[in-house]
């Protein structure tokens, strides 16, 4: 591999990042090669490690940085999760370690995902349960109005409770996503450290 193909590969590995980030990284490594001198090209390539290794470090860091800067947008957080997962997957790992990493990520993701779905289901069922009570109140209004009033009252209370829960749950889910991203970032750094220690 020579300098040109090395940098081209690096650009390819970074393509998930915003264009200006990719350009900045490439400019840095172009300069790095320049400074080291043409005669040391092969040595630099060896010292830097594979393009995947360089790219995974940049992506993980950029994902964590984005998260710190704007932890309010869920969309950004989800992108950050993907970036870290990509960083872990593109890191040159030994096969068993990679398998463990993938298994960990997927089980982690599955648990969190089902947890979030369960919470949403609970809130929705409270909300719709209230509406059903409200509607059934209307239906028995002509038969026995005190019972109808009771049903409608309960319906209103429960529906209101459901609506009140929406923003709380939304914030809670956002928080979970943020925690996930941080945990994934930590996992990434642990894996990279393990690798350095010679696994």
């Amino acid at each position, binding site marked *: 591999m020579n300098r040109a193909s090395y940098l081209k590969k690096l650009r390819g590995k970074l393509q998930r990042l915003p264009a200006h980030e990719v350009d900045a*990284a490439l400019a840095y490594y172009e*300069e790095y090669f320049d*400074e*080291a001198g043409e005669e040391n090209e092969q040595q630099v390539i060896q*010292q*830097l490690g594979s393009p995947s290794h360089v790219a995974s470090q940049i992506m993980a*860091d*950029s994902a964590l940085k984005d998260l710190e800067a704007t932890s309010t947008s869920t969309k950004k957080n989800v992108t950050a999760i993907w970036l870290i997962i990509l960083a872990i997957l593109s890191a040159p790992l030994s096969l068993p370690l990679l398998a463990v990493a993938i298994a960990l990520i997927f089980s982690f993701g599955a648990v969190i995902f089902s947890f979030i779905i369960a919470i949403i289901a609970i809130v929705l069922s409270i909300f719709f349960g209230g509406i059903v009570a409200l509607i059934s109140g209307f239906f028995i209004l002509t038969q026995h109005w005190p019972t109808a009033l009771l049903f409608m009252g309960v319906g209103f209370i429960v529906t209101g409770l459901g609506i009140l829960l929406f923003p709380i749950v939304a914030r809670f889910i956002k928080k979970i996503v943020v925690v996930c991203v941080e945990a994934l970032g930590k996992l990434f750094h642990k894996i990279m*450290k393990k690798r350095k220690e010679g696994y």
Partner: protein
Amino acid sequence: MTFQLGSALLDACVLAIVDKEDAYGYSLTQQVQSVMDISESTLYPVLRRLQKANYLTTYDQPYQGRNRRYYQITKQGRIRLLELLKEWHMYKEKVDYVLLGGK
């Protein structure tokens, strides 16, 4: 090196080097490597992060027909460096106390 290097210590080293004199990527890597065992590719994310945090700014200067990007410490960077130095001293004293058996 046997002792692990955390990102805070790495930040402190980079800021301390740039505080003395503006430096470009390659020379920075060499200088950090002279005291710590880091891989060649470790420094770029660190520099980018410090830059995004407004601890560092960059400017380009022509050198032999191309541009060198110099990193310069900012006012916030100096403040951050002082914080890190303070923490380092506290940490160092505690570790010394245990390792060297107190004064």
